């Protein structure tokens, strides 16, 4: 650890508030979010569209769309370095070097007019000071590591010549080029077929085990969370609804939103053609959020207190936190399977 660095954690986000200027005024896409991720662990962020999971990732990467998106409060420490308010030079040193990122759609993240080799070599030349030849040698190694057959050939190909799964492997190779301490994967398999999704998630798990990096995995798929994450943060409308270890969350979900989500997914054991439990209403837009608990207009347990007073995250067991006024009463109710 560098001198003067005090944080024990790989990633520490405290009180993050990210706002967007829109035609209908300023909206809070992320509202006082805390996250902690340690080396060698996988933290899952799960939620539906507009819950703030991707904006949280973009805030950490300091890649918010400018000038609309602003971090208006909070701190983000990666390996002890504060990123909020950091100089561009500091960010350049960290981004792509200590933090790697992969996105949902590799075709929009890769440059279509540059060969694969050049795109991988770029960050090695920039951050590691390698010359072009050495960087391309390393690129071949990286392609091999992410399971791309005939890497020497692929080096001189363009992104459109690869399949979706291969492109995502190339994205992973680029993200891992500089041995990052933190990998942020934003819906990395959502655009892929289920058999290819399984390959990519296994690959990320293997690479994490080999390198000891921390992985922040953002997804809407609770199945992916259950199979690949150690810890989970459930987000709803810009706030953390619940956080716990994956074991605890799936064994005993506390927040009515988490419970509703889990119940509404058809499982292989659910009686066929039976009506599924639902969460009523729809996912709110950020411009039109209810007062108090943001889930109150969809929650079956909401009362006046929920409509007026925003619940704080409170401890609901070891490492388990929930933002609900009534979690204790709800926990005693039967979980709908």
């Amino acid at each position, binding site marked *: 650890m560098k001198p003067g660095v005090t944080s024990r954690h790989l990633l520490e986000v405290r009180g993050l508030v990210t706002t967007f200027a829109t035609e209908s005024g300023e909206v809070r896409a992320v509202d006082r979010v805390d996250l902690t991720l340690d080396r060698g662990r996988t933290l899952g962020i799960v939620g539906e569209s507009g819950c703030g999971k991707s904006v949280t990732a973009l805030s950490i990467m300091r890649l918010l769309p400018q000038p609309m998106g602003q971090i208006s409060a909070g701190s983000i420490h990666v390996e002890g370095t504060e990123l909020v308010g950091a100089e561009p030079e500091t960010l350049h040193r960290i981004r792509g070097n200590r933090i790697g990122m992969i996105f949902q759609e590799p075709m929009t993240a890769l440059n279509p007019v540059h060969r694969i080799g050049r795109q991988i070599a770029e960050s090695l030349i920039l951050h590691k000071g390698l010359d072009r030849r050495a960087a391309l040698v390393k690129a071949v190694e990286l392609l091999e590591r992410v399971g791309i057959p005939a890497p020497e050939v692929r080096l001189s190909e363009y992104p459109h010549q690869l399949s979706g799964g291969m492109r995502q492997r190339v994205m992973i190779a680029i993200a891992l080029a500089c041995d990052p301490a933190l990998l942020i994967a934003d819906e990395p398999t959502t655009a892929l077929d*289920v*058999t290819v999704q*399984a390959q990519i998630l296994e690959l990320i798990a293997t690479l994490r085990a080999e390198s000891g990096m921390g992985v922040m995995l953002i997804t809407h798929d609770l199945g992916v969370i*259950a199979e690949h994450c150690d810890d989970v943060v459930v987000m709803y409308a810009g706030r953390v609804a619940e956080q716990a270890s994956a074991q605890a969350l*799936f064994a005993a979900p506390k927040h009515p939103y988490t419970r509703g*989500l889990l119940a509404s*997914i058809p499982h292989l054991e659910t009686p066929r053609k039976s009506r599924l439990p639902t969460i009523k209403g729809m*996912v709110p837009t950020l411009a039109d959020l209810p007062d108090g608990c943001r889930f109150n207009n969809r929650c079956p347990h909401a009362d006046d207190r929920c409509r007026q007073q925003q619940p704080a995250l409170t401890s609901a067991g070891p490492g388990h936190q929930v933002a609900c006024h009534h979690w204790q009463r709800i926990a005693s109710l039967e979980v709908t399977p």
Partner: protein
Amino acid sequence: MSTPLLELRDLATHFPVRGGVLLRARGTNRAVDGVSLAVERGETLGLVGESGCGKSTLGKTVVRLLDPTRGAILFEGEDIAGHSRRQLKPLRRELQMVFQDPAESLNSRHTVGNLIEEPLLIHRIGTPAERRRRVDELLDLVGLPATAADRFPFEFSGGQRQRISIARAVALGPKLLVCDEPVSALDVSIQSQILNLFLDLQSELGLAYLFIAHDLAVVRHVSDRIAVMYLGRIMEYADADGLMSRPRHPYTQALIAAIPVPDPSRKRARTVLGGDVPSPIDPPSGCPFHTRCPHVEDRCRSERPELREVSRSGSIPHQVACHFDF
């Protein structure tokens, strides 16, 4: 046995692949290549497969948005594969389609009321007052308020827009709905609402569905029977419970194993399938799945297995296109 509502016999839809400066045909995309299936009245046939397997092409061919290259599409016993547009018009009352993205399939310049009334107008059904009443009924049927009629599609969320397109699809009282990935663009908490709506409509209206999706858990939930498609062909067909509890084809087994299950205590031995789906323009010889199959043998590379019956559940055969028994 009575005639199935819909029966496909050796249906194929091929597209020419053009290239070069003169755009000459250079090959053929065999998107659907010899599919035989049946949908019974009031039942749901689920059709699953990965991208590029031809499931959407099959759906569009069934409702004749695409022309088949060969084979028969028997709707209530009548072959509609070669029907002209005019011959198809009366069939549109019986056979409708719901698409994945309601933002694209609904014209944003029309009010919701006009959109739902349009099929009634085209088929000259009812007086204006009767149509207006029917629109209200349909809105109520799909769980939307009557006030929605005067608003525009963009004022609604994704789930509500899908309700609008379902109302439009059932306006003429069809017997069969072809649903192409109808919930995959929706948020998780909204998916179950729409799946329930499909189930309710089926029991209220006696609708049959050809339900096309990539999510096997969703397909299993709504289907009576399931067909698994790969590179334009059916790999396995069975009743939904039989297919899920005792999958026989190595591809179906891999698909089921690849579904992430929301239960971290369930540690399963996974067979992660290698490779990607090959291109339907130049499909592998022999069994289309042989390039990815963990059990491949020489015979699979040269000889294409046909669908064969391996067991039976009541009147429903369990069919597998594989040389071997797994």
